[in-house]
């Protein structure tokens, strides 16, 4: 019945060394964050806090046109302005910088500064380096550019059919369709043929982006002897510095990348290759250290981090008894002017495309269209939030058409607790879960029966009160196969399969533990996570641990904090490193205690002999191990020092089928959420007020419930914005009309209600301590939950919510159409 190819996938045995446990001392405790003191007192050391001697400042000239050839640039007036160090054009930058990074295959070339033509409003045309940013911006205004306007393609439906000068990358793609592939995972056609009901809907997911309060930036220096040193708020860590060195046309050893604390990323600061290359190139060409920080306008227009901009045409096939059979959809995604993450944001959702339901087969046609807009990049959930929206809307529509209760329809199809690990048609697995229990918990948390009777009463008064309920997956810990497995099979590109995370641990002569991370802090409590795991491992207290950060020369493999992977992966690396160090501690300690290594263990900050009081503290051992070599035997295991580097690889990933009949296991540490939202709609104005909201999340073992709740609430707030407020508006001329924080509206304290949260834990059998990732949080479910609630409120009018966002004018338009007398 299922795809025969799924049988090829062998679920690797678990490599878990530390099981989930209720006796944990530190894992599961809501300790205050170790990051906070510096952040609370203005000592966060963000990128713009960094200053180097003789540093100059860059400002950029942004294209005012969405599509135009650059004919001539006259920089003489700009160069003549006092305080200007130099003015650099795209052609000049290309002498020291090659093109930026692209995971697309075949690639789509992007230069950090446009050379022949501008492909979207805001693209960098030239840059000024000056003594300060004020002067740099003055000089930018003096640069004269002659453009030849080209046809603008702002609407993907139109862009798809553009020819001639309307084609955005004519040497690399014949048209603006960058990608058009169809996949079947399982017997999709047969399943649709035997369906007794097919529910079909078109849905629209509007463009927005992470929009952290801190924009992106870098500080770079160059000299011939030391090469490049670039500090930036990239969240990607030290994974591919050698690639960036290639972009900068230097030997890999001549680029050092340094990370800093990050004022929020939400995907936007993953990689940042363009900013790094641009700033570094300016440093080299100007002969000065250069700081470039995007201002807010630049960030909107040019961040390379816009979110999905999708048009779905989706169908769900079912039997009359409510059994789901198959899901099939066509998605057109407007990727903007480049394709640096390939179509990864459409590969990602395939990890959980069927939601928590047992659907037999999945078919997808994906069309990626290039348009004259800023390109897409990572945005919290990386496209999976759209898939959640699609399946949950279809399920509600099916419930209506079948005359079935929407909870009953979900329960009828949900994976059962005894069926884990469960493989979905695309090949990914859900490692553990109890979806039914999460639903029950959410219903109790919000007292659903009470709201249902309030709703009944409200309806008698003509008030539009609605209850939304969604049950969604939250995949965590990705394998990078999703970046390339949808690329054409013959040309997958850089088909990497490593997705590691590393830590370095050292115990110094005073017995304190120094942990070096290679991933910068982005707000997600990474230092606290590590502290708690190490405290658990060694039996020490948070004050005994110092967290530091490596750079690309001193660091080790790691992808960084994204894709809800960091806590799981760094916990794995910490466990590996801790186990090794504890072995050394035991060896040194046993010698000092004149005991056998097999008879000692590390407990409560000391090496203790079983069944006795005899022990040596870590500090007592550490001073000896670091300074007194001759106190120990002359064999290698007693070499001076207590330090180790450990890299932890993905604990549960397999490769995709050579012809993509399945995608392998690529995102299997599967969290689950149930969100229930209660809203009231003002029918006359289209305004939505959220009256109550409950979010129950299963992210396996929770390291710090307080910080996990922070992710849930923050992600839910983000998702409320996605549902009700946030949309980037590009007009037909490709002008980004609302590129400011006054008109692109993110939720304020008035827009986010008090969110009730609760957890339920089905530990992962595959990760250390059973932890699952939860960082993408409530954004996975909230848009669908709010849409579901509004739809329920307006059910008497027969209105369906198949689009986000629905700000008041749009919602009012839907109501108007439904209520206009025929």
């Amino acid at each position, binding site marked *: 019945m299922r795809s025969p190819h799924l049988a090829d996938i062998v679920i690797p045995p678990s490599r878990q060394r530390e099981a989930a446990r209720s006796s944990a001392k530190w894992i599961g405790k809501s300790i205050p964050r170790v990051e906070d003191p510096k952040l609370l007192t203005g000592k966060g050391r963000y990128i713009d806090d960094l200053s180097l001697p003789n540093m100059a400042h860059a400002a950029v000239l942004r294209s005012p046109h969405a599509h135009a050839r650059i004919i001539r640039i006259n920089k003489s007036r700009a160069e003549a302005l006092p305080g200007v160090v130099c003015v650099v054009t795209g052609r000049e930058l290309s002498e020291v910088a090659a093109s930026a990074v692209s995971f697309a295959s075949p690639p789509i070339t992007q230069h950090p500064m446009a050379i022949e033509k501008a492909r979207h409003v805001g693209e960098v045309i030239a840059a000024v380096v000056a003594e300060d940013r004020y002067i740099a911006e003055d000089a930018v205004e003096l640069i004269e550019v002659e453009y030849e306007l080209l046809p603008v393609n702002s609407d993907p439906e139109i862009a798809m059919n553009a020819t001639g000068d309307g084609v955005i990358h004519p040497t690399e793609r014949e048209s603006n369709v960058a990608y058009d592939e169809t996949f079947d995972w399982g017997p999709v056609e047969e399943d649709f043929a035997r369906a007794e009901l097919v529910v079909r809907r078109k849905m629209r997911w509007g463009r927005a982006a992470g929009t952290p309060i*801190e924009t992106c930036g870098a500080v770079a220096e160059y000299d011939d002897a030391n090469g490049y040193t670039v500090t930036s708020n990239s969240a990607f860590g030290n994974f591919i510095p050698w690639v960036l060195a290639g972009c900068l046309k230097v030997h890999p050893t001549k680029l050092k990348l340094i990370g800093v604390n990050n004022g929020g990323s939400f995907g936007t600061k993953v990689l940042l290759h363009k900013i790094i290359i641009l700033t570094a190139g300016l440093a080299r060409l100007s002969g000065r250290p250069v700081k470039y920080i995007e201002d807010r306008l630049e960030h909107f227009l040019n961040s390379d981090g816009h979110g999905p901009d999708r048009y779905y045409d989706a169908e769900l096939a079912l039997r009359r008894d409510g059994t789901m059979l198959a899901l099939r959809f066509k998605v057109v995604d407007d990727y903007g002017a480049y394709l640096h993450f390939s179509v990864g944001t459409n590969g990602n959702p395939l990890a959980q495309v069927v939601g928590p339901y047992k659907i037999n087969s999945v078919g997808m046609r994906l069309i990626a269209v290039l348009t004259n807009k800023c390109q897409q990049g990572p945005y919290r959930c990386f496209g999976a939030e759209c898939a959640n929206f699609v399946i949950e809307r279809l399920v509600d529509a099916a419930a209506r058409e079948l005359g079935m209760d929407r909870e009953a329809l979900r329960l009828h199809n949900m994976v059962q607790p005894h069926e884990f690990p469960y493989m979905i048609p695309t090949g990914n697995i859900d490692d553990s879960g109890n979806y039914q229990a999460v639903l029950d918990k959410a219903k109790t948390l919000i007292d659903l029966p009470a709201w249902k009777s309030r709703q009944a009463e409200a309806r008698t008064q003509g008030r539009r009160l609605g209850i939304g309920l969604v049950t969604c997956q939250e995949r965590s810990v990705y394998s990078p196969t999703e970046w390339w497995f949808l690329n054409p099979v013959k040309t997958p590109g850089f088909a990497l399969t490593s997705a590691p995370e590393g830590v370095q641990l050292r115990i110094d002569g005073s017995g304190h533990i120094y942990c070096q991370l290679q991933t910068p802090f982005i707000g997600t409590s990474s230092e606290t996570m590590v502290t708690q795991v190490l405290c658990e491992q060694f039996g020490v207290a948070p004050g005994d641990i110092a967290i530091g950060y490596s750079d690309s020369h001193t660091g080790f493999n790691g992808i960084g904090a994204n894709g809800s992977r960091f806590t799981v992966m760094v916990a794995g690396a910490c466990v590996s490193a801790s186990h090794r160090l504890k072995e050394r501690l035991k060896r040194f300690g046993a010698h000092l205690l004149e005991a056998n290594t097999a008879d000692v263990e590390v407990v409560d900050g000391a090496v203790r002999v079983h069944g006795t009081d005899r022990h040596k503290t870590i500090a007592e051992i550490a001073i000896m191990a670091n300074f007194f070599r001759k106190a120990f035997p002359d064999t290698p295991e007693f070499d001076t020092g207590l330090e180790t580097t450990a890299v932890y690889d993905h604990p549960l990933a397999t490769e995709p089928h050579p012809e993509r009949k399945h995608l392998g296991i690529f995102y299997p540490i599967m969290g689950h959420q149930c969100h229930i939202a209660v809203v009231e709609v003002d029918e006359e104005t289209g305004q939505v007020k959220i009256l109550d909201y409950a979010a129950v999340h299963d992210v396996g073992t929770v390291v710090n419930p307080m910080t996990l709740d922070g992710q849930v609430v923050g992600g839910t707030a983000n998702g409320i914005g996605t549902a009700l407020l946030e949309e980037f508006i590009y007009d037909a001329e490709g002008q980004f009309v609302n590129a400011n924080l006054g008109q692109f509206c993110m939720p304020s304290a008035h827009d986010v209600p008090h969110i009730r949260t609760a957890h339920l834990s089905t530990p992962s059998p595959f990760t250390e301590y059973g932890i699952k990732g939860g960082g993408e949080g409530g954004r996975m479910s909230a848009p669908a939950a709010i849409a579901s609630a509004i739809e329920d409120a307006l059910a008497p009018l027969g209105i369906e919510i198949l689009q986000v966002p629905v700000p008041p004018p749009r919602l009012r338009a839907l109501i108007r159409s439904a209520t206009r007398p025929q």
Partner: protein
Amino acid sequence: MKPIEIAFTLNGKPRSAEVRPRVLLSDFLRHQMGLPGTHVGCEHGVCGSCTILLDGRSARSCLTFAVQIDGSEVETVESLGTASALHPIQKAFQEEHGLQCGFCTPGMLMVARELLEHHDTPSEEEVREAIAGNLCRCTGYQNIVAAILSAAAKLRAEKETTV
């Protein structure tokens, strides 16, 4: 555009400086006064991460020219506490997990301080209104509200013990 001399009080200390008229107070504090705790998120007066106290009242430092503070009192997040001696409001933020990335936090702390100096028992509504002009992308505001309410209680208790 000649530099202008200004004299002012900064975090309780008398200071003086020379500044060109168009330099924004946010840049002046961060780069000329060596106080990077005040953050810049938008420079059009919406995000609130640049919020400081000017003559005791919260104000956007990105919408103020440094020349304007001549004769005024300016207080930034650095006036509150230090890592080893956190101000009660800062302590409350840590206890209630009222920050994640920390970028909006200095602005939140300053409006919280202003609110609590004028209302010792604010309601949740009043707290939300006070921080409504400060955008946070991380927390969803819930814990910030809890932190400010907790800080109010701490400050009331402090007042009672010192009376």
